[in-house]
């Protein structure tokens, strides 16, 4: 497995992270200056709520209405192919997980990220070394995007000793100290104050790192989210709150559960600015995340990004999904698919040929097959593992 693991790491390794302090700000700034979209997405310096809202409404509407403007793409070929590769890895990984679930090799709850790939890949594109991330149970994509090993993630899904949590956590509960991925939380909303705590620790130590705190549109109704907003705002915590608005919390649409459809305004009462982002467009996600993260790094406090996205599959594997039509799903798949969208842009702009993308496709297929193999061949944990990891030795 060592060889393959390295192979997978290489495959995922696309960030070219610069060492923290010196390169940090320059990179981000540069990127922003170069990108028109990013500049538009930048929060105003004096982020009063009125300004921000106005601006955001414009940005949101513009992002939704305008076809992706290939001409303004400033990303390098390497970067674009990297995003393509990362999104495709998540897609294929999740398809394989669905299959393994159907075969009984994965059990319990298994929430697939298919359709939402651009969110996590776009955000990770601006992550710097030392940044932290935390999310809920729909977490496989987040783990792959931050560089965790696909084989280890899949082996966790099959409950084997080679899994990142030695098979003890399963789909909903994975963690990586190395990649600063803090879970993997099964309780809706609980990751939000924890995420603010991660940000508090960075503020406390005086570094310029950001914590990406992901949560769903359903989670946005939990009270602890607002307790967190208040604290994050008064203490100016470097927390980037990313609401993955995939329109549904299980069978409940946003319209039925939220007093406002605009979740990015949910910070208004706490003086936290926010914006709505086309979460199906990896470059739009990246641009907004760059601006928002910059603000956090500079000590201006938290920011909310509402990612307008969509999940193609059921809530979990056991969701008959009668609350929406097949046509609704199909429409998003054909018209807004994040992977197709980026693929089209790459080809249209002549950045890469079809053949090059095909090579990536088969590399990803092979990587996922390898993860699949590892996840089946890794043995179940030894029964002695039942009793370990309850406490640390004193």
């Amino acid at each position, binding site marked *: 497995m060592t060889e393959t693991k390295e192979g997978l790491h290489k495959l995922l390794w696309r960030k070219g992270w610069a060492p923290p302090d010196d390169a940090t700000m320059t990179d981000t700034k540069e990127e922003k200056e170069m990108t028109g979209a990013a500049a538009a997405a930048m929060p105003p310096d004096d982020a009063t709520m009125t300004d921000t809202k106005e601006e955001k409404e414009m940005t949101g509407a513009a992002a939704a209405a305008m076809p992706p403007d290939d001409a303004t793409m400033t990303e390098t070929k390497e970067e674009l192919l990297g995003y393509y590769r990362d999104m495709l890895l998540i897609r294929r990984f999740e*398809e394989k997980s*669905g*299959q393994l*679930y*159907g*075969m*009984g*090799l994965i*059990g*319990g*709850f298994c929430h697939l990220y298919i359709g939402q790939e651009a969110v996590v890949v776009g955000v990770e594109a601006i992550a710097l070394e030392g940044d932290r991330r935390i999310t809920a149970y729909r977490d496989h994509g987040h783990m792959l995007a931050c560089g965790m090993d696909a084989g280890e993630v899949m082996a966790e899904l099959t*409950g084997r000793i080679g899994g990142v*949590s030695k*098979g*003890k*956590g*399963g*789909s*909903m*509960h994975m963690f990586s100290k190395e990649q600063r991925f803090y879970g993997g*939380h*099964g*309780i*809706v*909303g609980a990751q939000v104050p924890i995420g603010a705590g991660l940000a508090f620790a960075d503020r406390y130590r005086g570094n310029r790192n950001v914590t990406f705190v992901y949560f769903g549109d*359903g*989670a946005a*109704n*939990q*009270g*602890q989210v607002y307790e967190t907003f208040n604290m994050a705002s008064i203490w100016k915590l470097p927390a980037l709150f990313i609401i993955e608005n995939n329109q549904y*919390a*299980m*069978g*409940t649409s946003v319209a*039925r*559960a*939220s007093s406002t459809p605009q979740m990015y305004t949910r910070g208004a009462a706490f003086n936290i600015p926010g914006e709505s982002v086309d979460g199906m467009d990896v470059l739009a996600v990246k641009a907004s995340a760059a601006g928002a993260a910059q603000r956090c790094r500079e000590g201006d406090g938290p920011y909310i990004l509402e990612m307008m996205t969509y999940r193609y599959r059921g809530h979990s*594997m*056991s*969701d*008959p*999904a*009668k*609350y929406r039509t*097949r046509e609704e799903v199909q429409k998003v798949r054909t018209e807004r698919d994040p992977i197709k969208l980026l693929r089209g842009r790459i080809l249209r702009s002549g950045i890469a040929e079809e053949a090059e993308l095909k090579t990536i496709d088969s590399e990803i*297929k*092979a990587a996922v*097959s*390898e993860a*699949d*193999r590892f996840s*089946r061949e890794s043995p*179940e*944990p030894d*029964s002695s*593992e*039942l*009793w370990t990891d*309850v406490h640390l030795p004193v």
Partner: protein
Amino acid sequence: MTSQILLPALSPTMETGKLAKWLVKEGQSVSSGDIIAEIEPDKAVMEFEAVDDGTVAKLLVAEGAEEIAVNTPIALFETEGDPAPAEVSPAAVPAQPASPQAAQATPPSVSEAPQQTEDLPADTKYRSQTVREALRDAMAEEMRRDDAVFLMGEEVAEYEGAYKVSQGMLAEFGSERVVDTPITEHGFAGLGVGTAFAGLKPIVEFMTMNFAMQAIDHIVNSAAKTLYMSGGQMGCPIVFRGPNGAAARVAAQHSQDYAAWYAHIPGLKVIQPYSAADAKGLLKSAIRDPNPVVCLENEIMYGATFDVPMVEDHLVPIGKARVWKEGNDVTLVSFGIGMKHALAAADELSQLEIDAEVIDLRTLRPMDLPTVMDSVRKTNRCVTVEEGWPVCSIGSYVGSMIMQQAFDWLDAPVVNCTGKDVPMPYAANLEALALVSVDEIVAAARSVVYR
């Protein structure tokens, strides 16, 4: 390349399913994502998609076939081109690790155990119902009887319950009385308490009791204590209910048994039914009770079938245990899904000529200790069975009360069979080890009868 399409597992607890409908014909070509069949586990019809592009070569299972085991081939599938290198065809899948559900799959011979007849006339008719249906009927009957009763919770209305317990209720009672909430447990539990103070009789469903931890302050501080704090003025007629304990492979944050937690709280009543008849009768009593009642259900038991009496108003009193099986050698005390294990153990013990008496506590607070003491005075030995953790468990309380009230009758120490003292692991083999097992109960019973 021809491969088999196997009946997929579509939920954590699915073991078999019905092939409700084929949506493809033999020879039809399909693309990945196309729906090829409708499959019915026990609670809902689900669509099953093709995972690859190709042609359906042969349908192996007829439409309408029931009780098909998960992983049974249901069709043959023809794909073009090269299979992915390490793609393992389903036939080559190594044997699946022993899952706890498989281990528990053989149900105890519940049918042979006496069904509920206490206090009912001999000519009472029974019908077979699942626990899920019995709970729904209890709520619906009480809502017809009293218009102050309403149901509130996540996905209870339009989705008809995450576990389909409230099936049909929105259609019958409308959205004023079957209320979908946002994911806001602390908020809607507190709001429910407020409606109860104002004279309504809310049934608050938690999608699972794990999520009631978000709301536990209102259950304990607001619902349970207000009557006392108000000098008896202000009661809180509310029911908090939902599935409790481990389901299957849902790991640490979704697999906790809260029996001992709620049983600890003065001011609450706590019921944890095992059979469908008791689930119905106890929930109806809980809804009528002027006090806050916590009703602990179990996801794995929702689909279990029992005889339910066909009487006008089937009420089971809160605070009364029930002797499921009489015996002379050892008393097994359990409740909820623990009864399933206890009854299975009693069957095995009878093969060893050990005659166990099995008591279902049914209510954990107030607990029917006299029934336990009467039994222990007869058998002189006791083993308790529960899925929860051992420290400060229901079993440890029962044991200490036996010591205080029936010490002179004991011929052996009371043994507590419990879940292991660890968070619930995800891995199938570890999960099986973490749960209380029939073997452990049999061993405990043998140790107290010394044979």
